[in-house]
């Protein structure tokens, strides 16, 4: 065993920050609250950096047994390997930048201390999730980030829409967690362990074991992933989650928490690898979500909602990557996405800040001159997500699309879906860009101003990462992750790869060109006023999915609750039972009450009668039965 790397510090530091700010933050000055909140992720980031010694991976630290039940054991184990290292660097690094940004963004909020306490709590659970050496500890982190997400979406709980969005996120996630739990139970029943390394070893020892129960386990785990990572059909909570503060949207609902599903699938890839059916489901759901969410994103007018649907769509890409067993490509895209999507959200937050809280892009416009740094950083992010050559998503998206193309006939269809999505992505991102920064300003009561330095600093750092992040992984990423994720054998010819790359870039350029024609050459204002084409309504109403869920699930559920559970079970059966018991008690009370006449002589009479009866029953056997008391024969 090698030296301890003190992995426990990574989750513990944010937890201490949470305790300090959560318990006494209300009474501390803002500077102290900020210092505590910033030191926690920074400390964790340093520990992660110090622990980055890939030579000794996987590094396991066991802190004792958590649960013992018969032969089944769950240990408190943290594992650092190539996969969790990348996740941790993204979580603590991007998390730290977003903490800095929040200092500026939230400076005048009353719940400043509460906000940072929740943010640190989120980091605690997220690092636990990533470091967990077994699925149960991962589930603890999984549920914990759900809690932190709920608290932060509903951060401005005085607003009903925010409180409702928090509840929606939590409930929809619970549906996914249900699948995750069933998957865990199946693992325990079939393998008797939840430790990832043991499971992998067991599967490696049985090379013929495929399909069947493994498919069931993989699909159950994937249901959990669709909840947390906002895939079809459980994606509905993520767009509503934009009710939370914008840095929260950047950290939790774009960069880190929503990618937990991708991480989980990559972590348990040895199960998915054994089930072609489950992999196909993952790939199809991913590609369908990518296309579906991108089409909705085309017509949204709320700047954050565009980004939310974009996130759903990009997560779909990652699952497409997982589904064609290109886990390292998925993790690569996860990392670059964390950079450019966090940047997009933070820049959008800066725009919203500049517009005094306005989120509707129809009321923006002409912000390029007023907010130059925000404009330039946002431009970098837009180029990055659109797959502009040699920027981050160019590499990662290309890796996923190439892997999809290389994986059989189904993969070819999914590759085409991905390609179309790439064009749509470029379109809605440039639409956002043109509507926000170009043309005449369409709002007359706003006085746009550039944001404070604490907000611009993280923007610049993330812009650098968005532009250059792809070079970190280009070509090397798969090799780096191969100890954890295994190696892929399919290799493509250089010329085919070049064609695919050109096609992806062409798709992006196509999207940009249409957006340019529609929102720049014709003025954006005229475009917004133009009559909507057919199908537009369907997209604006998000395919009526919320309405459908409302009609098909929520309404029947409420009806069953009201008519069956409330009226029949509660009022009729349980209430009736209670009334019956009460009736028996009061009736017998009314009868027995007669006894309590208040007349002393009647009490005495009952007493005497009782004593006489008692005496009779005690003495009767002696007097009339076996005579043992000879009253008349006194004397000796």
């Amino acid at each position, binding site marked *: 065993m090698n030296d301890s790397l003190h992995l426990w510090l990574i989750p513990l530091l944010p937890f201490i920050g949470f305790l300090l700010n959560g318990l006494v933050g209300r009474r501390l000055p803002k500077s102290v609250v900020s210092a505590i909140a910033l030191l926690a992720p920074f400390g964790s980031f340093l520990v992660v950096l110090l622990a980055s010694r890939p030579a000794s991976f996987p590094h396991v630290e066991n802190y004792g047994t958590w649960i013992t039940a018969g032969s089944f054991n769950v240990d408190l184990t943290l594992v650092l390997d190539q996969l969790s290292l990348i996740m941790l660097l993204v979580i603590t690094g991007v998390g730290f930048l977003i903490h800095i940004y929040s200092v500026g963004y939230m400076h005048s909020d009353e719940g400043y201390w509460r906000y940072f306490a929740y943010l640190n709590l989120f980091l605690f659970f997220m690092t636990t999730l990533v470091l967990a050496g077994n699925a149960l500890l991962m589930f603890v982190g999984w549920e914990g980030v759900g809690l932190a997400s709920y608290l932060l979406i509903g951060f401005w709980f005085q607003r009903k829409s925010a409180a409702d969005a928090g509840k929606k996120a939590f409930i929809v996630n619970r549906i996914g967690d249900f699948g995750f739990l069933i998957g865990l139970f199946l693992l325990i029943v079939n393998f008797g362990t939840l430790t990832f390394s043991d499971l992998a070893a067991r599967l490696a020892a049985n090379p013929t074991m495929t399909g069947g129960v493994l498919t069931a386990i993989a699909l159950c785990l994937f249901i959990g992933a669709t909840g947390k990572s906002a895939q079809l059909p459980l994606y509905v909570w993520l767009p509503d989650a934009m009710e939370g503060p914008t840095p929260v949207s950047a950290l939790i609902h774009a960069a880190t928490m929503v990618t937990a599903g991708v991480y989980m699938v990559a972590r348990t890839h040895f199960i998915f690898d054994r089930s072609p059916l489950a992999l196909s489901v993952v790939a199809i759901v991913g590609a369908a979500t990518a296309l579906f969410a991108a089409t909705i994103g085309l017509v949204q007018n709320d700047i954050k909602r565009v980004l939310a649907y974009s996130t759903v769509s990009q997560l779909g890409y990652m699952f497409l990557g997982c589904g064609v067993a290109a886990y390292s490509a998925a993790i690569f895209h996860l990392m670059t996405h964390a950079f450019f999507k966090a940047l997009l959200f933070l820049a959008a937050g800066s725009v919203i800040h500049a517009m005094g809280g306005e989120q509707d892009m129809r009321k923006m416009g002409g912000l390029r001159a007023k907010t130059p740094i925000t404009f330039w950083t946002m431009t970098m992010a837009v180029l990055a997500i659109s797959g502009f050559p040699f920027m981050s998503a160019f590499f990662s998206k290309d890796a996923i699309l190439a892997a999809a193309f290389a994986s059989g006939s189904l993969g070819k269809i999914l590759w085409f879906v991905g390609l179309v999505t790439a064009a749509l992505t470029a379109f809605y991102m440039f639409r956002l860009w043109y509507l926000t920064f170009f043309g005449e300003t369409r709002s007359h009561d706003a006085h746009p101003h550039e944001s404070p330095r604490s907000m611009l600093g993280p923007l610049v750092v993330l812009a650098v990462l968005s532009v250059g992040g792809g070079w970190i992984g280009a070509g090397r990423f798969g090799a780096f992750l191969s100890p954890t994720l295994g190696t892929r054998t399919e290799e493509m010819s250089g010329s085919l790869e070049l064609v695919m790359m050109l096609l992806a870039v062409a798709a992006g350029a196509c999207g940009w060109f249409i957006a340019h024609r529609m929102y720049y050459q014709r003025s954006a204002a005229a475009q917004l006023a133009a009559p909507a084409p057919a199908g537009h309504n369907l997209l604006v109403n998000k395919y009526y999915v919320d309405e459908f869920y409302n009609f098909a699930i929520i309404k029947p559920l409420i009806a069953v609750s009201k008519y069956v559970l409330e009226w029949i079970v509660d009022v009729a059966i349980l209430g009736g039972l209670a009334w019956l018991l009460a009736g028996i008690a009061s009736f017998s009370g009314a009868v027995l009450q007669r006894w*309590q006449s*208040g*007349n*002393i*002589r009647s009490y*005495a*009479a009952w007493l*005497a009668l009782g004593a006489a009866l008692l005496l009779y029953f005690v003495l009767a056997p002696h007097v009339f039965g076996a005579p043992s008391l000879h*009253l*008349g024969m*006194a*004397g*000796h």
Partner: protein
Amino acid sequence: MHLVSHEVPLVWYLLLSAVLFCLGVVGFLIKRNLITVFMSIELMLNAVNLSFVTFAHQWHEVKGQIFVFFVMMVAAAEAAVGLAIIIAVFRARSTLAVDRIDLMKL
């Protein structure tokens, strides 16, 4: 042998005791005056005392005698407290009829 056993049979003492006890019970049940009720209680106690003494004498057991002293002592204390209560009740209500002393009745 003892005089009692030759002259007066044990059962007579016990019968006397039983008669006295029943008188006490009947008096308690039918009388309305609180003082009479109280006296009936004393009568019952003493009827029991008589049985105690009889048996103590019969079986040469001193415990029965001792018990009688206890009963007398308690009865004396009870008489003191009871009479005090009766006087207090009469002062407050100007009546000693047990049927009308029913303030605690719901």
